[in-house]
């Protein structure tokens, strides 16, 4: 009760009130975010691993981990692969989402229920969608079956056992799960567009394609940017589904940067090295996201 009274006393002070309101979040950030950051920076310049003893007794090797990163092919491929997956998956999601959203702009019977059905995949737990696609892509599973019905010949691709098919499967999983996200955002953007400019263009005799390219898309620019930025940032973290579906395999063929950090840290217990990678990621993503979130903070 003392603290409550103190809050009441202070709550008439315009200087102190915001400080008190920010206290819970500040304590948390300082304790759980700032302090570990120091551990991270320290561990990044050591070769620490649990097998070499406690962290403060680890051997300091300064830039040794950076040299290791420059020479680590597995890491570089994981990074390249992740960036490629983000590019492919985000593009596909955007295109599919846009086409669907355009189909849903006009009111028609059953629209509400169909929107809900199309949104379902993004509500599925990502780890469980990994399990779903693990079942779907079995050699005797539904995907091969559908292909053999469509093509008329037996189809038995070893989706998850072949490096390049496995990569395709993981991208398909992400596209399946997050196309609804693009669809939802683009649809809400399209529905909120003012009707006047579009009608005016139509009266002036512009074709539907021209209206779309010259009127609709420019007005959608901010929303499209927000959707693409958010999706690529989220996609870069991709791990849950892959962990269950392929565990990064076969070989390293579906390993994303998150999967790789997980394995290096908790399978090979290479804490020092992983800390340096994490630190590098923090700094580079920090710089990227500072610019990327501009449309979000613009308000």
């Amino acid at each position, binding site marked *: 009760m003392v603290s409550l009274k103190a*809050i009441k006393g202070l*709550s008439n002070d*315009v200087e102190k*009130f915001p*400080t008190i*309101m*920010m*206290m*819970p*979040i500040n304590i*948390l950030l300082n304790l*759980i975010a700032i*302090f570990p950051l120091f*551990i991270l920076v320290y*561990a990044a310049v050591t070769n620490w691993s649990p097998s070499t003893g406690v*962290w403060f007794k680890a051997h300091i090797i300064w830039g040794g981990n950076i040299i290791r990163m420059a020479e680590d092919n597995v890491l570089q491929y994981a990074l390249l692969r992740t960036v490629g997956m983000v590019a492919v998956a985000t593009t596909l999601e955007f295109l599919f989402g846009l*086409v669907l959203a355009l*189909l849903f702009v006009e009111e028609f019977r059953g629209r509400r229920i*169909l*929107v*809900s059905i*199309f*949104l379902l*995949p*993004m*509500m*599925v*737990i990502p780890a*469980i969608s990994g*399990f*779903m*696609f*693990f079942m*779907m892509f079995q050699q*005797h599973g*539904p995907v091969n079956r559908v292909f053999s019905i469509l093509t008329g010949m037996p189809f038995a691709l070893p989706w998850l056992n072949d490096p390049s098919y496995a990569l395709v499967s993981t991208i398909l999983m992400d596209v*399946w799960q997050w196309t609804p996200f693009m669809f*939802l*955002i683009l649809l*809400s*953007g399209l529905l909120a567009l003012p009707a006047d400019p579009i009608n005016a263009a139509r009266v002036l005799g512009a074709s539907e394609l021209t209206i779309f390219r010259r009127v609709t898309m420019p007005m959608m620019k901010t*929303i499209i940017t927000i959707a693409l930025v*958010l999706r690529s940032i989220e996609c870069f*973290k991709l*791990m849950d589904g892959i*962990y*269950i579906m392929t565990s990064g395999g076969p070989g390293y063929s579906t390993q994303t*940067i*998150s999967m790789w*950090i*997980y394995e290096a840290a*908790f399978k090979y217990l290479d*804490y020092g090295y992983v800390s340096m*990678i*994490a630190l590098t*990621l923090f700094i580079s*993503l920090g710089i990227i*996201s500072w610019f990327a*979130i501009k449309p*979000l903070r613009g308000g």
Partner: protein
Amino acid sequence: MNITIRKVIKYAIIIVAVFPSFFPIYWMVSTAFKPPVEWVPKEPILFPHNPTVENFAIMFDPKAASYTSTTTIREPINLALQNSLILSIGGTILALFCGTLAAYAISRFKAGGDILPQMILMFRMMPPIAAIIPITIMFAAFRWVDTHIGLIVLYRLFNLPLVVWLMKSFFDEVPKEVDEAALVDGWSYWGTFRRVVLPLTYTGMAVTALLIYTLIWSDFLVALIMTNVSAYTIPVFLANYSAAYGELYGPLAATGTFAIIPPVVLGLAIQRYLVRGFTFGAIKR
């Protein structure tokens, strides 16, 4: 005529698109009702020939299995379910508490200036896996690994940015005149917040809470790393058994079906607010 053709094409595309979008979910749900012989036959079975709820029974009581298998799920889902509930509810309440206070201070008093809100948002953009290594070290020192308290603190941390930005967007919608009128009437700052402004954002709080609940319930990564034998959640439970007993499709599909019910129901319930939720309040429709 032209319009009719366009309508037909439109419906055709939508129907073609519904199939891949809905089928994976259908496949898991239908597998959950299949007896063992129908799990991985040479030809996939679209509708279970002999529907059974045995898989769900096995989920809660592994001894209920009528078939003998060299590999059976040896543990019921009970503990994982209990953990998932405790962590989701605990994490949601704490994140909402801290986040709402901060959001109000940021919305009304510009607390933290321009930098802090953006730092909070940037934190959300980082891959959690990169943050988790130093946190593991700290948690090991606190003996917080594999405990509810540790995970709740972590979930609160990872979801705070969303709460702050979302609640800020809801507070921004309450006109400043409301605050001013309350202050003129003699309310304290705390009273204005608690008794006047906060009740106006109850809908927003409910939406935020449901969204955070869904996110924590769906989390896999944090739980995978931070839990071991006592605090593991449903996705980790599923992952462990899918790795160890991958061929037990039925019970695993039943677990998956069971696990996605809350997020799907809650997601549909807050469908109107999903855009705002997923864009951190940037798009308000």
